[in-house]
């Protein structure tokens, strides 16, 4: 600051540190990282509050513990001669111990803050009731165990959807107005229905009536011993949920990309390129795809982090053992650490992606300067 004033006073036309590229990027990086971090903190804390209903879930858990302990003590002391006071004391001790184990003995507001601190350090802690398949209560194990299933389902379907719709959209935008183009426009309202909805129809047609594909699950029971058979079985189970995820947004996705490309291909410089007699492939790659690259990259990045959340309802309908279903089950079991854990990871992924996208824009689009947006 002082240096700026000094150089301005001296009238020397020399760029101050704050105006150099490095300075601008550094300042932008710090401010951006800070605001993003604050966003993640607030978002995460809100999720903690909501996941506990502001402490209301504590009451549910306490009542639950009380009820279970009373039953257990009654069962334990059923055949023993034991005085009522003894039984009462035993019960109270067990309740106190269980509440201590779940951390219910400290007030919720204090607990929520330690919770937040731990969550921000990605120390996700232990689940209250849920266990991973290997029997661990560690939240990150529970989440990691489900991740491959979700990545398989969401990854294969979303990546296919993304590239396939861009590919088709480019072809359609090249010769718009033909039969296929009109067909896609007509079919695009079908994307108003969510994937699980198509899932039900697919199960009905291919599993119930035609009996050629399995109803649900990820692998046939019992799972095949042979690795190849196992992979085949998983692929077979993948077809229905995967295609319902694809079909439910395919037409709208193609339509949106096609319209997007058409708007760009009606620009003057594209006409100019056509007039110059460039081949259409070159026009497409240099004059249409190049300026739309930031949008394509944004969409792709959001798609990749969107994989993380899974598809709760589709996974539920298909009984696919993915993350979405785990979160749904966690909510049903009042297991807040699992809910918060998955949210914080998503928040971090989103923040990092948003942060990186700013730089990627500057790389692919020479008109964009990092940190140059708001000041100029």
């Amino acid at each position, binding site marked *: 600051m002082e240096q700026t004033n000094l150089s301005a006073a001296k009238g020397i036309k020399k760029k101050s540190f704050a105006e150099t590229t490095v300075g601008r990027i550094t300042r932008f990086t710090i401010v951006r990282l800070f605001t993003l971090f604050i966003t993640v903190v607030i978002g995460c804390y809100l999720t903690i509050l909501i996941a506990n209903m502001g402490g209301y879930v504590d009451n*549910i858990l306490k009542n639950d513990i009380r009820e279970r302990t009373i039953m257990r003590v009654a069962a334990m002391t059923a055949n023993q001669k034991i005085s009522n006071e003894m039984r009462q004391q035993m019960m109270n001790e067990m309740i106190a111990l269980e509440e201590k184990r779940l951390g219910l003995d400290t007030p919720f507001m204090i607990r929520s803050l330690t919770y937040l601190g731990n969550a921000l350090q990605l120390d996700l802690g232990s689940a209250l009731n849920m266990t991973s398949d290997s029997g661990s209560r560690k939240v990150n194990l529970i989440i990691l165990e489900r991740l491959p299933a979700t990545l398989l389902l969401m990854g294969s379907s979303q990546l296919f959807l993304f590239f396939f719709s861009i590919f088709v959209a480019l072809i359609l935008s090249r010769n718009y107005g033909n039969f296929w183009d009109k067909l896609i426009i007509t079919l695009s309202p079908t994307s108003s229905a969510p994937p699980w*909805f198509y899932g039900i129809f697919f199960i*009905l047609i291919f599993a*119930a009536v035609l009996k050629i594909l399995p109803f649900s699950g990820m692998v046939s029971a019992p799972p095949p011993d042979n690795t190849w058979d196992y992979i085949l079985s998983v692929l077979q189970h993948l077809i229905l949920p995967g295609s319902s995820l694809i079909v439910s947004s395919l037409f709208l996705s193609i339509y949106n990309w096609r319209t997007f490309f058409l708007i760009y291909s009606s620009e003057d410089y594209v006409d100019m390129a056509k007039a110059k007699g460039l081949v259409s492939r070159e026009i497409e790659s240099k004059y249409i795809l190049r300026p739309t690259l930031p949008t394509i990259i944004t969409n792709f990045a959001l798609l990749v982090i969107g994989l993380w959340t899974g598809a709760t309802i589709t996974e539920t309908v298909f009984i696919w053992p993915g993350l979405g279903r785990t979160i749904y089950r966690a909510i049903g079991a*009042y297991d807040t650490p699992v*809910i918060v854990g998955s949210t914080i990871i998503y928040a971090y992924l989103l923040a990092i992606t948003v942060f990186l996208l700013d730089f990627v824009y500057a790389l692919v689009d020479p008109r964009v300067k990092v940190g140059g947006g708001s000041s100029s």
Partner: protein
Amino acid sequence: MKSIKKFFKDITSYPSAVAGVIVIFLLVIMAIYAMISIPYSEAIRLWRGGEEVWYQNPKTAPPSWFNIFYARKQPVSFSIKGGEGDFTKTVTVGEQGTSSVDFSYTWDFQADDYPQELIIYFDSTYESKNPFVSIYLTTPDGTKIRIGDFGVDEEMTYRFSQDEKLQKRLKTDKVIQKLFSIPDSDPVTTLKGNYTLTINAVTFETGSTIDAEFVNHGTVYGAFGTDIYRRDLTVPMLWGAPIALAFGLLAALGTSLLTMIISAVGAWYGGWIDALIQRITEINLVLPFLAILIMVGTFYSRSIWVILGVTVALSIFTGSIKTYRAIFMQVKESTYIEAAKAYGASNSRLIFNYMIPRIIPMLIPGLVSSVPSYVFLEASLAVLGLGDPVLPTWGKIINDAETNGALYKGQYYWILEPAILLMVTGLGFAMLGFALDRIFNPKLRGL
């Protein structure tokens, strides 16, 4: 006036928009019909009443009109009270206070399959000696089969298939099948024609009465069929329409109006208000939308109105607020705003009378196209088992059907009826919204 005419001309040039309008119009009519023909309290009573409301209906019976497509015709369900219609009731007073009451009912049976069950509900009044009944069934070939003779309590249910004496007499435990078959046929085939149920009752006291209701649980029922709890699916199918429309429209309207007002306020005042709105939008992006809805449904309340409120609250601060903000930023600089400012219009007047009306045409397509997503959101929550506990909605029927394994058991009608209605609703709004988008958005014209 001219612009409205032009707008309608534009609309009619899109066949999908016309189809969408027709669908929405039909849905509205269906919703009004549902609310008039089955008032709310009656709908709730029919839907949540319990066995005493549903006893007349068979279990998981497809709609009657399915018979058109079935190669093997199914027996249609019916129930009739003694003394009503063709179920005749004649009382003959005898000596010493006794009287004989004769019931008779004849119906045409043309099905290839057997009814689920035949039930007679008796209702009698007496002081010390209860009435005595004898039941007979006359088959089309003229045989009169004795079904049973017994004394009747004040309220009594007689099920044909559960009567052990009858099972012994007919030498089979498949009573219904035996009664409705051609004797000694192989393979067993139904005997078609007129069946007559005769009940001869004798009462032994003056003032003692007896009434009977004959319930025939067929395998097809009514216009929409029944579910596993014998509930008539007509109620939720009809009532699903007003609920879906109300939820979808209110959520879409509430979200887009609030988004528009908030972004207008932010764009107008700028400064910290604008910054705050931007930050809230970013935080909202981090919050897991569906998970929060599920949490509210699980922990707090499953009432459709609470869910509606939370949905709207979470949907305000999304990407669309940024789109609106960009448009308002442009509008803010227009000369007519400058002029209004010059003659001293207040801030609220500027926002609500000058800025917001300007972008309403841009709002409408988005509003109409977002209706299906909210309709399906309600259904999605219902499929997760978080539907409104009281109201009969389409999504809840899909959930019921799913959890009771309708797909595995081949009861496709149960899942298809609500699914098709949902699909039609979604498509109707989506098609109209799509066409409106192309009409209102000059960039898309001709594309």
